[in-house]
């Protein structure tokens, strides 16, 4: 199976002889170069954690943010092209607003995810546009549905998860995540795990100067999605740094 298109990879409307749409695969490569983003779902809380590697001395601390609030209780984190991310965040917000206009309640996350996935998928169908170079993770919590976590790939496929990861250290993060049992964790434990995972998968050689960002929504936030909430972010960062120094003694 050839992994280089050569002739069948110039437009999203062409299949290769072995049934792949190479433009979508190439779009995924852009996602793989991005800083890691993870989503983890606990007992009554969901945490999105981002390894922010676009860091420049001249930037403010909130530059190049990759976590967005879509609705009061819905958060979204992206891996991939930032410009595409801002655009899709806006689409998601419009979807949520339209739903609220019609049904006068917050959009259920599964429905939002289906709509946004459909939108992203539409861009993989035509040669006149390019696929989004984006992997999107949605998180929400409410009283009826509890904690919810969904991820959308650049191809437009989406699944629900207990824990998911995207970006540079996706494989590594997944390996780390398998060591934990998130489903029973309290909010504090979940937050700390998020910090630990991000700090551990961070590439110290190339991306030592990274910024840790976190989105959290759950019972303890009263169902409101917070980005970089002071006390919980602090908890996560401390846990992450502690885990890093502990590991530093035993070489990974």
């Amino acid at each position, binding site marked *: 199976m050839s992994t280089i298109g050569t002739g069948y*990879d110039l437009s999203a409307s062409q299949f290769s002889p072995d049934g792949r749409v*190479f433009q979508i695969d*190439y779009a995924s490569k852009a996602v793989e170069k*991005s*800083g890691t983003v993870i989503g983890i779902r606990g007992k009554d809380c969901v945490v999105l954690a981002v390894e922010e590697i676009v860091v420049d*001395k*001249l930037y403010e601390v909130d530059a190049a943010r990759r976590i967005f609030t879509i609705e009061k209780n819905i958060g979204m984190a992206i891996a991939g092209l*930032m410009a595409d991310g*801002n*655009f899709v965040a806006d689409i998601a917000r419009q979807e949520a607003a339209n739903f609220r206009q019609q049904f006068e309640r917050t959009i259920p996350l599964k429905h939002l995810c289906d709509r946004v996935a459909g939108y992203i998928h539409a861009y993989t169908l035509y040669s006149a546009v390019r696929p989004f170079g984006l992997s999107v993770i949605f998180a929400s919590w409410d009283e009826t549905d509890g904690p919810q976590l969904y991820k959308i790939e650049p191809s437009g496929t989406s699944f629900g998860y207990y824990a998911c990861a995207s970006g540079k250290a996706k494989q590594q993060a997944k390996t780390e995540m398998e060591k934990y049992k998130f489903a029973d964790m309290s909010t504090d434990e979940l937050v700390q795990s998020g910090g630990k995972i991000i700090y551990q998968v961070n590439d110290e050689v190339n991306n030592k100067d990274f910024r840790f960002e976190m989105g959290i929504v759950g019972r303890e936030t009263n169902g409101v999605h917070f980005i970089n909430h002071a006390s919980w972010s602090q908890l996560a960062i401390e846990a992450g740094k502690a885990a890093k120094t502990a590991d530093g003694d035993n070489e990974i």
Partner: protein
Amino acid sequence: MFRNQYDSDVTVWSPQGRLHQVEYAVAAVKLGTATVGLKNRDYAVLVALSKPPSELSASQRKLIPIDDHLGISIAGITADARVLSKYLRSECLSYKHSYESAFPVSRLITNLGNKMQTTTQRYDRRPYGVGLLIAGYDEKGPHIYQVEPSANFFNCVAMTIGSRSQSARTYLERNLSDFINCSKDEIICHGIHAIRSSLPNDELLSKDEGASQLNITIAIVGKDQPFKILNEEENIFYLNMAKKRGASNIISKPEGDDDDNSSPGDEPEPSTRRDPLVAVATMENQ
């Protein structure tokens, strides 16, 4: 290796996951002359270097006012900048008409980014070949934003774009911690110093500003200060002030000798000076 095949349309991803057309558009910014944006607690300042195409003509306008609380400086294709500034002006005006208050800067820039994103995704559009530095002031204080042709935008403490901006960047990084507490005059002088390091070498040697072909234009916006491009007199006033504060504080060579002419108000030099660190935010590292 496969670059040439994948770089003619903006709708084509390369096998490495890059959008070459967008990257080429970003390169267009480096063709424009340098411009610097920086801010202190109450003011945001833009300083631009402009070079007339010939001795007989006036130089290209680099600073464009958008609204009372916002203005931009451009580097790249001027025609594209005109389209964007028309959009920004109409958005600000429309907001003012609806809400009778100034458009919060961060939201305006988010809208601009989303508008520019569509040009990076459709076959019948091309990215805007211009980089913008926005200086704005709203209830949250002064802001400096950098907007790239890739539709990425960054909230900055200070920033520089355009050709030969690397030395200006080094100056900014070195003096970053001083900016927040500067006075209005000091921050303008910092901007002038930063941009002077982007001058080509032969211009530097002629300390006489009259002989220089290059124009420095300055704009300021902030608390009780609507966006204003300084006029001829004010320009000269600040250029002279900057000269007095350390005209040799220019980084054309790696070690600038900033020990002469440093007046008491300046930052303490010797032991605390860091080596210039080059932080390059590439488009690929998202």
